[in-house]
């Protein structure tokens, strides 16, 4: 089965959305395309797990990639389902231009396609191209609302990410050079790098890795390069925010994981863990105060993304097999929880007409369907059982202790508690209490509630299940990926 099959569904959907005129038809095509895409991803993941990596020209899908692809397609499915309500609301409030449906859905699926290119690229250059392409394809989605805030956010997003990624490419070139020096021909394939890694010149790899971490770290939202993130996440339409936070950051982090895996045999764990611990703890420390005194709930969620990406970097920094296992589990759980949070935040935004935290109260009574999922998602993000993040945080922090990085782990724990205090404070204020102001009269159509319940359940159910039960297959998958990352397996 060819690897590029993965890209067919989103590309075709994007093209169809661009051709078709009727909004309802576009919506339908989008949903069908997402389902198809998810199905293909599922199928390919299954065959990867059952029969080893799929290889194509310059493309390769191994267990790690399949994991990411599955996450991307699942979140994309949920987001495209939730887009229907979003677009209807926008249309009713007359914020849409004539081509808006085409532009939105076309770009949306293009965005998905570029992200799906990330896991299947066997080439660090193509990987970079793919990540850069995600920025470009999503820039107009971020600026979809044409008001000045959205434009500002899109500008910052493009500028900062492009510069950051340029440095990532520089790092990649340095690694390429190191690979050339080590002999073995001119190749950017990461499988190739994995083979020659131990022979590469550590000095060059070290420098290259710094640039890579800085570059992909910018895209993944590690502090202090995260500054574009709250703006973009807060201004983008909520389904897009869900994609940005749940998938885009995850893809960038995937790139970091790949480089981590390449550098590991060459540099050894000490240097890598210093770098990742630094950025991880730094992100936690920067995000925590912002979360404590947040004013805008979509920005709040965005900072929570910074925090979680930092936590994952911390997990890589700890670097034991179980820690990597936990980090990858965290990747999945965070994607689920954060997308759910953004999607429900979008509905809260529709119900209340404001993004200010202090102006939202009693969401559970005003918009119970959104309030419930929002609260659940936020509690999940706080790392409480029965949500999966509890488990992954438990694993990662315990490994921090077990590997002797006690001070770092204690600091991370303290920061997590601070973040929890902030998130909970705002979540309580928003979800509970009495409704204080008159609300926009428009209510979501109850007959179309399933359109919301399906994606919400799609995200929440696995999140809850993962907190209590990890199927043996997933357990094996995660362990396999941990081996890939730490150099024990070619996947």
């Amino acid at each position: 089965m060819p690897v590029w099959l993965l890209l067919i569904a989103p590309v075709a959907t994007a093209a169809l959305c661009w051709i078709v005129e009727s909004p309802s038809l576009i919506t339908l095509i989008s949903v069908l395309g997402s389902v198809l895409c998810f199905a293909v991803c599922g199928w390919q993941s299954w065959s990867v797990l059952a029969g080893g990596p799929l290889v194509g020209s310059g493309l390769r899908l191994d267990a790690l990639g399949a994991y990411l692809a599955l996450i991307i397609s699942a979140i994309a499915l949920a987001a495209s389902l939730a887009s229907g309500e979003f677009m209807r609301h926008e249309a009713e409030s007359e914020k849409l231009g004539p081509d808006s449906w085409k532009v939105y859905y076309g770009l949306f699926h293009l965005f998905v396609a570029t992200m799906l290119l990330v896991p299947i690229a066997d080439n660090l250059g193509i990987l970079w191209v793919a990540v850069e392409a995600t920025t470009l394809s999503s820039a107009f989605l971020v600026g979809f609302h044409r008001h000045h805030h959205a434009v500002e956010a899109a500008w910052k997003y493009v500028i900062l990410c492009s510069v950051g990624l340029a440095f990532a490419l520089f790092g990649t070139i340095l690694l390429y050079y190191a690979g050339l020096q080590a002999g073995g021909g001119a190749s950017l394939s990461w499988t190739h790098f994995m083979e020659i890694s131990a022979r590469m010149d550590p000095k060059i790899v070290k420098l290259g890795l710094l640039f890579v971490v800085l570059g992909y770290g910018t895209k993944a939202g590690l502090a202090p390069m995260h500054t574009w993130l709250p703006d973009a996440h807060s201004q983008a339409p909520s389904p897009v925010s869900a994609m940005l936070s749940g998938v885009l950051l995850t893809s960038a982090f995937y790139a970091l994981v790949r480089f981590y895996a390449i550098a590991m045999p060459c540099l050894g764990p000490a240097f890598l863990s210093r770098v990742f611990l630094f950025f991880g703890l730094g992100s936690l420390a920067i995000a925590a105060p912002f979360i404590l005194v947040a004013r805008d709930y979509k920005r709040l969620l965005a900072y929570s993304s910074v925090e979680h990406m930092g936590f994952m970097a911390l997990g890589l920094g700890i670097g034991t097999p179980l820690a990597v296992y936990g980090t990858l589990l965290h990747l999945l759980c965070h994607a689920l929880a954060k997308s759910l949070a953004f999607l429900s935040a979008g509905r809260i935004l529709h119900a209340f007409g404001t993004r200010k935290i202090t102006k939202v109260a009693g969401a559970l009574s005003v918009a119970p369907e959104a309030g419930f999922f929002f609260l659940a998602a936020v509690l999940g993000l706080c790392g409480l059982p029965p949500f999966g993040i509890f488990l992954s945080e438990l694993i990662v922090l315990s490994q921090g202790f077990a590997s002797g990085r006690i001070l770092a782990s204690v600091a991370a724990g303290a920061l997590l508690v601070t973040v929890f205090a902030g998130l909970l404070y705002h979540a309580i204020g928003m979800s509970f209490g009495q409704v204080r102001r008159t609300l926009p009269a428009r209510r979501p159509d109850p007959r179309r509630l399933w359109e919301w319940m399906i994606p919400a359940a799609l995200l929440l159910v696995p999140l809850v299940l993962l907190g209590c039960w990890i199927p043996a297959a997933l357990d094996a998958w995660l362990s396999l990926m941990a081996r890939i990352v730490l150099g024990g397996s070619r996947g």
Partner: protein
Amino acid sequence: MTMTFLLALSLVSAFGILAFRSLHLVVRAYAAQSIFLGLAALLLGMSPGHGHVLGVAVSAILIKGFVIPWYLFQVMEEVRIQREAEPFISYPLSMIGAVGLALLSYAVVEPIAVHDPFAARGFALALTLMQLGLWLMVGRQKALMQVVGLLVVENGLFVAALATSFGMPMVVELGLAFDLLVAVVVVGLLIFRIQSTFSSINTERLSRLRG
């Protein structure tokens, strides 16, 4: 010798970009820099064993030396902006900073490739250009200036790719070039949008999203 001269000229033009206030001059300096680098690549391509670089070099000269500057002039026409009036970092300070960054880049990169002076100098120049490009973006308020900064950063990448002496694999190079084009178009469109929403392309206006 010629190669060194060309690379030195590209560095000089980078400082020129940093020094000029007029947007026209800046874009021209960028075009000049791109052409110098393209010529350097051509030179490299003519040496035996590096034939595949030739295509890259030609396309670089065409795209970055002519197409992109032309596009930027179009944008300038459209938004009617001529000069950088209020830099974020004052001109003298930005020159001093630039010198410091250049020195740092050399200090960082020189030791890593002692056996290969060509690569060492190439990477050092590449990093310098990237740092200067970033520094330009930090220091200037006009959105167009930031675009030029980004392009200078990209030129640095071009140098880095040359410095590996083999160039990057073709498919990657093409991807990069394509990405660059798209990026410039996207950024250009965004600048139009900024102009129409804010009636200015001063990025200082773009600071309402805080906290």
